[in-house]
């Protein structure tokens, strides 16, 4: 069942999707961002995602905004309002419903739809007649959408004013004029509009945050002071955001010559005491693999963001995937502990990043944030981020503590495997890091009888601590569910919705379904899988081909789950797709 303005489950009254289709360089992102922000300003929940080609101009992209009075975390399959800026946008016509509206300017692009209401609006003319240039027809289109929904257009004016500021006030004013004209035209004249009115909407402003921003904010909150990275879609947004905050928040953004330099620089900075990170996609991370092993050996904390995209090799640079799970878990020669966190939502990406720094510091291990293009480039409204929930745990010996010590050994063998950490530059003891097998003082050793095996055990003992850090899956759905879907990372929104959808269906058709969703994907604690014993049916849902999480479950628990729901064309799941695949299993099963 597609979403729509009408309530789908009793709690949801508003749930609509606006899609803007056009070429790269036509300004889709700006339009989509403005609309999303406009809805967030009046307290609507927004989830917006971008589907883009790897090019700067041309091609066909879209920006998709879903707004609801309930929390939404995934795109919907249906479109209520389509803004068609190019001919190729006609590929979205099939997503329209009877009451949907298509906005286009027939002087620019022709659109013929059998579904929904076609709205040929002279956007370019509106812009030019009101003193604007060609690109301002976009703002007219945005205003039209608001008009169709009878949405308070002042919110848009406010956003325009904020964006142009005092410096470019004149241009801002033209934009407002164009917007007003577009709004009036649609608001007053369009008859076929059967979309309900949002004129009465009043709610508290919500933050609108992208996945990349959430990670960057999490890093800032955690006191990260250094990121060295090499641009790579879809991870670049993190360094870009941090670069804008360099001065105010004491963080250095260094664009490295390559990803090998990225991780090694970050390790150097971390060794010297700055919380440090790097970010890339799978291909850039592939170049960091030796450095990851180094981090494991020198036991220097580091946070690495891997924003996945479809691969192998260059693959599809601007699309989404969950193909690098087993890769990041096993990356690096030799054996050393690491933790992998795959945030389920943009909000979680903020907290997971802050948490990653604590885990890295506490255990002196690398922590990987495994996100993807779908998380990175999407926007989500967030009610409130309670910064008090963020604690900074450095676990670095203070001057006081060091002063009291008789000796300090960088790789002291301890019960937990964690050696107390001091920073170089302290006036009491020397601090060492050695990539060779070393003794407790960090000096190269070839003692195979004692030192090597002890060091191996010490390093790997930290895994026990990490296993305790690892959080159990989120359980969602009815208590008495007999069936379950299992997911991890960014598929959460679609899965949650799929579960709702399935449970709203007749009990005759299939059993009740629950979701078990993992964000902490490595190390995996066998205990977190006891639910498998109690359930009749389980299917693992992943944005990849080979079913990597399913394999990890088998490895951890011995339970081989053959039911798999996989999508690997570069697009995120929609709830309905998952529901359909589940129903098919039940029919065959």
């Amino acid at each position, binding site marked *: 069942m597609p979403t729509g303005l009408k309530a789908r489950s009793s709690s949801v009254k508003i749930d609509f999707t606006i899609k803007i289709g056009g070429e790269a360089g036509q300004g889709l992102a700006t339009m989509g961002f403005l609309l999303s922000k406009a809805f967030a300003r009046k307290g609507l929940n927004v989830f917006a995602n971008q589907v883009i080609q790897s090019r700067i101009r041309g091609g066909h992209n879209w920006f998709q905004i879903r707004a609801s009075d309930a929390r939404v975390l995934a795109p919907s399959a249906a479109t209520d309002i389509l803004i068609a800026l190019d001919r190729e946008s006609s590929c979205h016509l099939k997503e329209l419903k009877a009451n949907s509206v298509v906005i286009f300017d027939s002087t620019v692009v022709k659109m013929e739809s059998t579904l929904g209401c076609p709205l040929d609006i002279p956007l370019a003319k509106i812009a030019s007649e009101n003193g604007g240039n060609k690109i301002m027809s976009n703002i007219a289109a945005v205003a039209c959408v608001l008009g169709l929904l009878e949405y308070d257009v002042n919110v848009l004016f406010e956003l325009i004013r904020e964006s142009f500021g005092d410096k470019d006030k004149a241009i801002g004013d033209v934009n407002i004029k164009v917007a007003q004209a577009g709004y009036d035209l649609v608001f007053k004249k369009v008859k076929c509009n059967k979309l309900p009115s949002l004129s009465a909407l009043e709610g508290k402003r919500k933050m609108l945050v992208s996945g990349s921003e959430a990670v960057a904010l999490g890093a800032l909150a955690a006191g990260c002071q*250094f990121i060295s990275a090499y641009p790579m879609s879809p991870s670049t947004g993190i360094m870009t955001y941090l670069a804008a905050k360099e001065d105010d928040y004491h963080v250095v953004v260094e664009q490295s010559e390559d990803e090998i330099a990225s991780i*090694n620089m970050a390790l150097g900075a971390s060794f010297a005491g700055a919380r440090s990170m790097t970010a890339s996609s799978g291909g850039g991370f592939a170049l960091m693999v030796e450095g990851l092993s180094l981090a494991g050996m020198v036991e220097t904390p580091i946070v690495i963001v891997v924003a996945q995209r479809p691969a192998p090799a260059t693959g599809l640079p601007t699309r989404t995937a969950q193909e690098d799970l087993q890769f990041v878990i096993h990356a690096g020669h030799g054996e050393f502990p690491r933790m992998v966190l795959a945030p389920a939502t943009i909000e979680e990406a903020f907290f997971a990043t802050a948490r990653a720094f604590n885990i890295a510091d506490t255990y002196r291990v690398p922590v990987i944030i495994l996100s993807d293009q779908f998380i990175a480039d999407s926007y989500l409204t967030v009610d409130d981020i309670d910064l008090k929930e963020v604690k900074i745990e450095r676990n670095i010996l203070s001057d006081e503590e060091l002063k009291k010590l008789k000796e300090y050994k960088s790789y002291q063998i301890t019960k937990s495997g964690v050696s107390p950490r001091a*920073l170089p530059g302290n006036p009491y003891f020397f601090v060492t890091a050695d990539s060779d097998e070393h003794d407790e003082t960090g000096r190269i050793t070839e003692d195979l009888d004692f030192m090597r095996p002890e060091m191996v055990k010490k390093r790997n003992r930290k895994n026990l601590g990490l296993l305790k850090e690892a959080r159990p899956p989120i359980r969602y759905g009815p208590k008495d569910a007999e069936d379950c879907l299992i997911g991890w990372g960014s598929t959460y929104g679609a899965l949650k919705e799929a579960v709702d959808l399935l449970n709203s269906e007749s009990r005759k058709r299939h059993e009740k379904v629950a979701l078990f969703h993992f964000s902490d994907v490595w190390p995996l604690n066998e205990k977190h899988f006891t639910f498998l014993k109690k359930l009749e049916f389980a299917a693992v849902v992943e944005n990849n081909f080979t079913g990597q999480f399913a394999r990890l479950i088998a490895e951890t628990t011995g339970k081989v789950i053959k039911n798999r729901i996989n999508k690997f064309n570069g697009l995120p799941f929609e709830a309905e797709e998952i529901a359909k695949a589940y129903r098919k299993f039940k029919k065959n099963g």
Partner: protein
Amino acid sequence: MADLESLGKYETAWCPGCGDFGILDAVRDALVKLDADMHKCVFVSGIGQAAKLPQYMNCNFFNGLHGRSLPVATGIKIANKELVVIVTSGDGDIYGEGGNHFMHAIRRNIDITVIVHNNQVYGLTKGQASPTSDLGFVTKVQTHGVISEPVHPLGLAVTLGAGFVARSFSGDKEHLSSMIQEGIKHKGFSLVDVLQPCVTFNKKNNFVWYKQRVYKLAADHDAHDKHKALEKALEWGDKIPTGVIYQDGRPTYEDACGLMKDKALIGQDVSSPSRIAPVLEEFL
């Protein structure tokens, strides 16, 4: 403060007669002469015979991966500019595996001092050609002799705009020590390329070979003239110049960056998550 005793004495894994001993001696000498606060010094190295040097002194060190000493050193210096960062590397380490970092570290002009034990061979892996091996140098892998043009590290460094470019010889402790001292004192990226005999695997460029060829740059050599410097930097053959070939005063990374003018990065307060509350407002 540094004195020979507190720097310690360690058993090394080097071959008797290796030029690395001369470099270690000169490094120790330089530290003593500079009266370095050893707790404020960090030695960074990669992997190779050369890269073992920090293991043989009482000091802070980061002995990282083969070829990757420069990014590590860069990160350390960015995080804490109060530290004196000294890299010890081999010709394979820094001009081979780590060549890209060499190029880009120079461009950044980060204030570190890089000592390259240039023995024109891969020592630790038993004698293959390195990027500085002479044409025709025969090894078990280059069985027909080297056919690739050797890199001219000093020429590269000058071309890339390194702030301080010097050459010395492991057989001349005094000169080498003074080059290292000057390198450390120079604000910005300093390269000290040290000709170093490998007695085991480089039978061609041995002590005598170097000894007969090295000469000290004339007192009137203008180290600030880039084109003169380039000429000297590329001189290699019967005569090999040593000394400060090029020196330049462009701003260091730490100064240009602007984020650590008053205080080292790690000295700046980032301890309260609530400091970012104003940023969150921007998302409303």
